[in-house]
């Protein structure tokens, strides 16, 4: 019998080491959290177990003499057009284990990205473009239910007062927020970095479904707290202290699937924040078992509104699925102030690969469909729309707002800002960049002072670019771009695809 099953020796990466450059600092041994690098004292040699390398490039980034390169293993099976490499490897893995394959980050399959087939307009001759560096340009956005009309009353002494009761609003200085990532899936250093950056940027961060750690109380005025099916850490105080509450129905990376933080990751601190005993599995069932209908959803929305005395907006987050427009219409009618639509390219700490890669629809299409539907029903003003899941740049933000979103959430982009290399092994809890791990040794790699600066820079850069693009279009406020599909043209999309997005083809 063979000493190990033959399939194991195929692996995706090779750690190429230039021994002339290597000074034996052993930094790479220290940095690799996947046990792929070791030092042989007797030979004074550094070695790699290529088969353990996940391609996170941490060692490469940290090597002081640039002696390392992580390269794709040139030895691959025959490049079969139908049997892609990952499908072959999955088949091998499942033949050996019989289990569900779990992965992290978002869908990496080459489905069409409509963003890359949309072009923006600009002013020429007939109306002037605006220079955002010298002229006023507003990105400020308000999220929440808007009234159809306002009534004024005249008080004594001729003062005009507002008679209409306005719904609570969140004020964003830029329409970019940090998306829900729970303490447990990520560590507190990274969560704190987002919280700090959000405060500095005048926008919001989101606790995810893992509760609110006491270290983050100072940032809670800019925090959105999540209520998911597991109800971890959800209490009266949690709802009352935050800026808004978000009911999580679904997530773009795994529509229809619940969450599961395995017991070994539930350390005492995470347990306290989630309000569960240490070491116990934190299971979020796929549905909220008190929500089987729009009426039931309304009940939870109003339970939160009652608890917060109608002072906070309530968000409802769903995954973008085939029927998203009709569902969003139901959610608007159920009383949500903000609907969050998470596209199928959204990231995750852990999801079955089969689900991540094959369920849901792109966020561009979903937002266009939801916006159109709500406008057709005359209720678009009653709810704000937040897009997330697959937004990669300032241009994507501008395009999705033109397709009908009010604001967006970023998560993968935020992780990239602090070092993530998309190695897709967040589920292992060994992230060498210290992002999706709670190993204290690794979590230290995220320093909130530095990481919050990186996040601030990213959003600041995007915001400036958005102002440039708005200026080019002759628009001086992001409000005026909302749902303004006339400023978009499609290129290389079918007629039907353009029709669904509501945009004309380039040239028309």
């Amino acid at each position, binding site marked *: 019998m063979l000493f190990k099953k033959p399939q194991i020796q195929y692996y995706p990466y090779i750690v190429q080491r230039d021994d002339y450059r290597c000074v034996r600092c052993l930094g790479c041994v220290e940095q690799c959290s996947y046990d792929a690098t070791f030092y042989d004292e007797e030979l004074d040699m550094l070695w790699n177990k290529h088969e353990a390398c996940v391609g996170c490039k941490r060692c490469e980034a940290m090597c002081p003499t640039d002696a390392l390169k992580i390269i794709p293993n040139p030895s691959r099976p025959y490049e079969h057009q139908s049997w892609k490499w990952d499908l072959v490897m999955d088949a091998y893995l499942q033949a*050996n284990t019989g289990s569900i394959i779990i992965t992290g980050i978002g869908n990496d399959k080459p489905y069409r990205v409509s963003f890359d087939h949309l072009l923006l307009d600009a002013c020429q001759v007939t109306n002037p473009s605006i220079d955002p560096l010298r002229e006023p340009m507003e990105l400020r956005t308000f999220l929440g239910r808007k009234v159809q009309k306002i009534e004024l009353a005249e008080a004594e002494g001729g003062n005009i007062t507002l008679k209409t009761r306005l719904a609570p609003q969140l004020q964003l200085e830029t329409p970019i927020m940090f998306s829900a990532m729970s303490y447990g899936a990520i560590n507190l250093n990274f969560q704190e970095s987002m919280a700090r950056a959000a405060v500095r940027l005048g926008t919001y961060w989101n606790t995810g479904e893992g509760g609110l750690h006491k270290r983050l109380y100072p940032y809670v005025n800019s925090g959105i707290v999540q209520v998911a099916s597991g*109800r971890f850490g*959800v209490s*009266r105080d949690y709802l009352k202290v935050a800026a808004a509450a978000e009911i999580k129905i679904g997530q773009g990376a795994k529509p229809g699937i619940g969450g599961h933080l395995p017991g070994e990751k539930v350390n005492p601190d995470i347990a306290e924040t989630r*309000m569960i005993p240490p070491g116990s599995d934190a299971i979020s*069932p796929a549905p909220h078992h008190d929500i089987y209908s729009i009426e039931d959803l309304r009940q939870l929305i109003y339970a939160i509104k*009652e608890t917060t005395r109608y002072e906070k907006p309530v968000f409802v987050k769903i995954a973008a699925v085939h029927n998203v427009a009709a569902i969003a219409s139901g959610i608007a009618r159920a009383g949500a102030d903000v609907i969050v639509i998470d596209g199928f390219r959204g990231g995750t700490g852990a999801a079955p690969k089969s689900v991540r890669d094959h369920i849901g629809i792109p966020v561009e299409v979903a937002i266009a469909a939801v916006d159109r539907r709500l406008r057709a029903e005359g209720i678009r003003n009653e709810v704000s729309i937040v897009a997330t899941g697959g937004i990669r740049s300032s241009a994507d933000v501008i395009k999705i707002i033109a397709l009908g979103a009010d604001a967006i959430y970023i998560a993968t982009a935020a992780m990239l800002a602090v070092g993530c290399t998309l190695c897709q092994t967040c589920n292992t809890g060994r992230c060498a960049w210290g992002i999706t791990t709670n190993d204290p040794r690794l979590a230290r790699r995220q320093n909130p002072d530095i990481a919050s600066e990186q996040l601030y820079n990213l959003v600041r850069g995007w915001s400036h670019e958005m102002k440039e693009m708005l200026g080019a279009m002759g628009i001086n406020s992001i409000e005026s771009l909302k749902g303004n599909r006339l400023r978009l043209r499609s290129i290389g999309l079918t007629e039907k695809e353009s029709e669904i997005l509501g945009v004309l083809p380039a040239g028309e």
Partner: protein
Amino acid sequence: MKTVKLEETAVEIDASSVYYRDLNDEINMAVNEGAKHLIIRNVNGQRYIGAGLQGDDIRIDIHGVPGNDMAVFMDGPTIEVFDNAQDGVGNTMNAGNVYVHGHAGDVCGYGMRGGRLYVLGDVGYRVGIHMKAYKEKTPILIVGGTAGHFLGEYMAGGIIVLLGMERRPGQPVAGDYLGTGMHGGTIFVRGEVDSRRVGKEVGIEKPDDAEYKMLKKELSEFAGVFHLNYDDIVSVPFVKLYPKTHRPYGPLYNARWYWQRGG
């Protein structure tokens, strides 16, 4: 709505034909002004009574049938309902007591983290789902009658006691899928339970002495609240349902690359 101040800290509210938002505004106002004992009469389906209310010394008596999500996110008060209650009683409750003298509906005690929920009569489907314990908090749900399907589904902590009293002959004490997905906490059933109805993750055995001691203490309180004969309740032995593992789904998953497991 008529609110009458009975004494310094007690008020009586007449809820007939009052919209739920107005009723809850009134309750919150009374509590903010220092009321400790609220007697609410003619309640007729108003939702969210006691939502997010805080204060161990607050007592609310409800006459009539309160609507869904009573005591949702509640943190401390005691609510006594002298009639039936509807769905979602004690949803994600943190602390406090809820006593229902009649039946209660579906999904009561969802995600409850602490406090006591006593129902004298029967409860509906999916009750006690995802109850959890936390530090010194152990939520306790006692049902005098029977329960529908999915009692204690996903249960992660706390205690459910099902007494099944006043049953019709042949009527089962609980529906199907009892404790499905349970990974923490304990369910005690008075009498026998049909193993066919119990989730496959759940073990059945006799309670030990310490558990009997705890049960007896809780049941004497339950008997006290509803003026029942305690000896009758404990005259029948109990069985205990417990999760066979705290990691029911552990072996089902594998990292994307085989070698990440050290394989």
